[in-house]
């Protein structure tokens, strides 16, 4: 799975949870400042991403994921099956 594939799949999750248009979900976007996503919805996004990508996102890592790019990189490094 390429980072672009991960981004596309991640954008679907962000749409499901926060109703953000997937075309706006690009790597530089910040969850709080750009999308107004609160901490509860971030937990939802993380658990949905765990299910979708088969990775584990510990709470300690979640707080460091400020942008869409942070999340995509984390998922890629966490070893999504290529």
């Amino acid at each position: 799975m390429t980072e672009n594939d991960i981004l596309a799949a991640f954008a679907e999750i962000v749409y499901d949870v926060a109703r953000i248009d997937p075309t706006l979900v690009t790597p530089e976007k910040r969850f709080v400042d750009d999308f107004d996503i609160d901490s509860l919805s971030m937990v939802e996004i993380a658990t949905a991403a765990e299910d979708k990508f088969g990775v584990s996102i510990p709470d300690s890592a979640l707080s460091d994921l400020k942008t869409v790019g942070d999340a995509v990189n984390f998922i890629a490094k966490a070893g999504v099956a290529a």
Partner: protein
Amino acid sequence: MTVRDVVVTGMGATTPLAGTLPATWEALLAGVSGARPIEAPWAAELPVHFAASAAEEPSVRLDELTARTLDRGQQFAVVAADEAWADAGTPAVDPERLAVVVSTGIGGLNTLLDQYDVMRERGARRVSPHTVPRIMPNGPAAAVGLRLRAQAGVHSPVSACASGAEGIALGLDLIRAGRADVVVCGGAEAVIHPLPMAAFASMRALSVRNDAPEAASRPFDKQRDGFVLGEGAAVLVLESAEHAAARGRKPYARLAGAGITNDSHHVAAPDPSGAGAGRAMTLALRDAGLSPQDVLHVNAHATSTPAGDVAESLAIRSAFGAHAEALAVTATKSCTGHLLGAAGALEAALTILTMRDGVVPAVRNLDDPDDDVALDVVRVEPRRMTIRAALSNSFGFGGHNVALTIVEAA
């Protein structure tokens, strides 16, 4: 200090009859029933498989994200509050002088039970982080408060099926005490779900007239056998008379008084003498500075249970004495079903519309009035009459009794 007059300047509701208050009122006058079979497969397993479900899904009036993060009861509350707020002309009010009192009888049970299923099937980590804000009994109040940016205080008194009326009584107190100028108050409920349906049925509180849901809610009728569970919300905008006058708003009516008592008799059964409920009515009249003879109409709590309706008729007689026979009594749950924590707010709104239009809705299904009910209950067709003052009664498990006095606007 003079007591501040409190007026009603806006109203909204989403009910088993319609998605708005005006459409609910129209359906009520036409004698429509909101009771219908529950199509979901789980209903077949229950002793009762019908309910007065909402006529309109609340999500159709909300943006997707709002709908997604709120429990169904919160959705109803927000829809009714939006309607009431617009109906009041979206008052310009200092947020620190705007309060919210939205009650529920039970809280976010759909979310609670659905998330319990999620936990059992998929594990604790899959439980939604939105669960707590959705299930807390103050959830509907909090959702409305956030939407309107109310900062004077957001409250949710809980007294089972009297909750909505008690919320309005608290709103009255907040304005009288000078703690707010505008209070958005009411009730919301959404518990048409297998567990509460089974639980109310176990109490033998629900009608089991499965073959004819529309005939099941029949307050004061000899053949009544329990209430019909409803869902929805109703919200009123209360305002100090000065505040409404300053912005040139003509009120619907004046909320002139409230009476709150407790039976102290049994957790679920009404005191058969109706003494506590009668005292609530007496206090509501006294609070409004009225004598029994000033009132011509009562919107009864009358849920269609065998014990409750007779106890209420005795209570009305104890509060009004011989004048009870001059009252035109109605029981709107015959059409709407019983909206539990929203019922008191809905019936306050319907009482106000009864006065505005000078027409008392007829009790549906009252084919053979109970001989033990010595009241003039309006049946067959609505009755035209001029009403300057009326009471709306609400009672709840726990022995709660609330009566609200509504008087025509000056």
